[in-house]
């Protein structure tokens, strides 16, 4: 089972990193989310795997390690906050720059121009 668990973590890391290395914001955000799953699982596993030993006193004789659980719990919530922030940044970036490319170069100049026009239209519509 340990092998299976480790392979899952490894696979999640691979998929996450591959997505993070894409050049558009949305796959990067997805990649980060996937990567944080992997990290959380990895941290959790530092308490080792145990079945039916929840760390609630009085419900079993042996307990799973509660410390990694507590750490991962807050990590999940913070991870959500950070994912949210990044994705909002991506939206803002798209709106301000007209592209969601984060590779430093705007390859797709046509789409850039198009979205520029869209922004102008929107501004006009607002006004």
């Amino acid at each position, binding site marked *: *089972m*340990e092998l*299976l*668990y*480790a392979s*899952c973590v*490894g*696979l*999640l*890391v*691979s*998929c996450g*990193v*591959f997505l993070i*290395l*894409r*050049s*558009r914001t*949305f*796959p*990067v955000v*997805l990649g980060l*989310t*996937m990567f944080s*799953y992997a990290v959380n699982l990895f941290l*959790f596993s530092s308490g*080792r795997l145990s*079945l039916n030993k929840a*760390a*609630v006193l*009085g419900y079993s004789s042996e307990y*799973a*390690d*509660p410390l990694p*659980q*507590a750490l*991962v*719990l*807050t990590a*999940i*919530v913070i*991870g*959500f*906050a*950070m*994912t*949210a*922030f990044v*994705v*909002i940044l*991506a*939206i*803002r970036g*798209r*709106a301000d720059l007209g592209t969601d*490319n984060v590779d430093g170069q705007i390859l*797709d100049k046509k*789409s850039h121009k198009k979205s520029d026009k*869209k922004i102008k239209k*929107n501004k006009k519509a607002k006004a």
Partner: protein
Amino acid sequence: MTLLWIPLLSLLGSIISSMTGKLTRNQSTRLTLLTPIIALIMAISLAPTIFSGEVLQETFSWIPLLGIDIAFRLDGLALLFVFMILGIGILVIFYARYYLSTKDSMPKLFAYLMLFMTAMLGIVMSNNIIQLWFFWELTSISSFLLISYWWQKAEARNGAIMALAVTGGGGLALLAGLLLLGNIVGSYDLGVILESKEVIQAHAWYEVTLILILLGAFTKSAQFPFHFWLPHAMAAPTPVSAYLHSATMVKAGIFLLARFYPALAGTDTWFILVSLTGLTTLLFGAYVALFKHDLKGLLAYSTISHLGLITLLFGIDTKLATVAAIFHIINHATFKASLFMATGIIDHETGTRDMRKINGMWRYMPYTATLAMVAAAAMAGVPLLNGFLSKEMFFAETLHQQLLGSMSWLIPVLATVAGAFAVAYSARFIHDVFFNGDPIDLPRQPSEPPRYMRIPIEILVALCLLVGIFPNIVVHDILDAASFAVLGGFVPEYQVALWHGFNLPLLMSGIAVTAGLIIYTQRRYLFQFQASLPSLNAKKIFDETIYSMVKWCQQKVISIENGSLQRYLMLMFLMVLIFAGWPLFEMSQLIGQKQATPIDVHNAVGAGLLMIGAVSTVIWYRIRVVSLLMISVVGLMVSVAFTRFSAPDLALTQLTVEVVTIVLLMLALFFLPQHSPRESSSARVLRDLGISTGLGVVVGSICYALLTRPFDSISDFFLANAKTGGGGTNVVNVILVDFRGFDTLGEICVLGIAALGIYKVLINLPLLIPTKDSEGRPWAKERYPVLLASISQSLLPLALLVSFYIFLRGHNLPGGGFIAGLITAVAFILQYIAHGSIWIAERLTINYRKIVASGILIALSTGVGSWFFDRAFMTTWFEYFDIPFIGKIELASALVFDLGVYITVVGSTLMILASLGQLTTNDSKDKVNV
């Protein structure tokens, strides 16, 4: 307290004078003068104590662990400089009142001058060398502001930048030197350092320390080859030059030599370095000064030359030489300040500083001319003036040294040569400006300046005469006290007198005066010779060096930082791969000794689903909706895994977060393109595949190695104390709200900050709302399905009830603030989805920012509350109560803390989603609460 007040008063003066913009010029000047005059009176009142040999000290603890204190000290040397800084500072401010035109901002100049005065006072009075360095840098910065006072002029800006670069660079060297010094001695306290001469000089790093400190001193006091910034700093208004280049800025370097003289001097390295630098500067400055046509240029090089003279004196290995150096510090400050001020008057009255144009000023301003001539005579070293006395002492001391072994006779000869040039340029200053025919097309018709503009010069010139004629009455006490401080307690017998009889120094003076006059009369030939020399423009070299350095840096930055996020991430991942992967190869065996658990069907199915989800996310990453759906499968399986492996709290959290995340990403996708275009080249895809596979293998292997090894955990402590110490049986929750409560507090703060940041980023967002979906179909008009609306509405109370239950039981059973908060948030998000934010806003008027703030405040005040019971921050209190009908229940302060967590989580989550969600409605924003 008195000592601290001296720099504090001048700082106060800086602030006061900066606020006098609305007052008249006279009022502004009076207000500005107020604080330095009080400070000067204070210093004078302390003088008798210092003259009796006492050293006043004041220390306030600042960072005791690092040995850094706020410490002030006043000994003879410091007192001398305090007098000069305050005295000449007051005169300069008074003078500047008449010098500045009505166009120039007077409060600005005064504020900068006072700031500079503060910095100088700080340097000379510091008793902690780190503090000394702080003030040292402050002089660099404030002199930058002063030199660039006329910032409209390019030469002022360039001069200021050059001065800052050179003296600031020297400051860095000084910092390194002082840190080394502090390390050698084991203390940053000046008193301790001055008494550790043997320790310092026996240390292996003595030379390095010395050179670094000397670099700081030499750059500041414009010693060759760092002299070039000083002439360019002449672009400053003349009062500034009079202050910076007579008594203060450049003297800071000299002060440093004097200050550390007891600790660092005495070795051959010191004498060779200091005396040769001084000698070179002395000769070079005196020679170049003669050829300057600009009045201030002449004075600038003369200043360089005199600074060289003082440095040389510090480098001569006799006690009397040190006394002479201190004496010359005083004399140079008085005559040079008055000369600068006189130059300012001439500039002011004629509109130019070119000596080829200014001639025969004697007829137009005889009074000023007399004053300037007396001061220039002091600069040349004419008898009856103070410059003569210190020059005599200087000549005498050059005869008593063995610096160059058998060639030591060179030094008195070279000193005489420099003296001759000093006479020559002084003669030029007097003759060219005040006599030598008629003025040549001056921009203005010159006349005597306003009466009061001359007063500071009169005072200084009177001092030159008084010191020159009655040296023992006027300067003996202060000179004695300062020498006492520099020489570390022993002052040699010396006699400052006008007449020592016919001796060698007098002969040298005579030769210098005669030769100087000859040089001046025959200057035509010298000027021709000088013109035929190739010119070496220090400014050009400096500019080119700086330019090429900046260009080099820019190129490096561009080549590293090209704006591609992918590239940065790729490099980072590569680093991780190398550093995390490398130790794996050094490990003998991956698998550990722990008994492996068999795989059961449930786990295999779960893992299979997770893997399929992950791989599908990657495969369909171009079609973003599909990719998002696939990743939600992964998230779901992760929470199932937590359930399986005995972590119910985690499972609940993961599940609720998963819901919120997917809703958020769905919303976000609405504003982003629906597809990712095909951009990466095949090679790039291959590279990324390589990196990601490598990292996956490495992390997976580490995880496997970790899982198969037995371990000891500190968790036994938490398990044992959760019930007795924290009053709860759910250990995970007790850790969160009690053992590691401080962490949790930090984390909810982060959550709140992220939510606030998102709120802010979304303000004034230029909207890109698509009207059609990716395949060109228009969005459905029916935005809120009726079925969902009615079900969700009836679900809300139920969901709230569940979250309340989960919250309450959290301390003892899986649940708690985080999870309950997320459940509540999900319940509300469902309402948003079903009805839209406008519908919600009509019914629910909540300001989420206030909610987040109140949540954090509740958590914080629970922590602070324990202070009132004399406990450490965040100590939990709990007690069991018997309540009729309900039974025995437990109340714990951790519950209140958890309430804070709950409220923050609800507020932040809703703020994030509502901020984004409300953008989808085009209606006016003020209707919607976020």
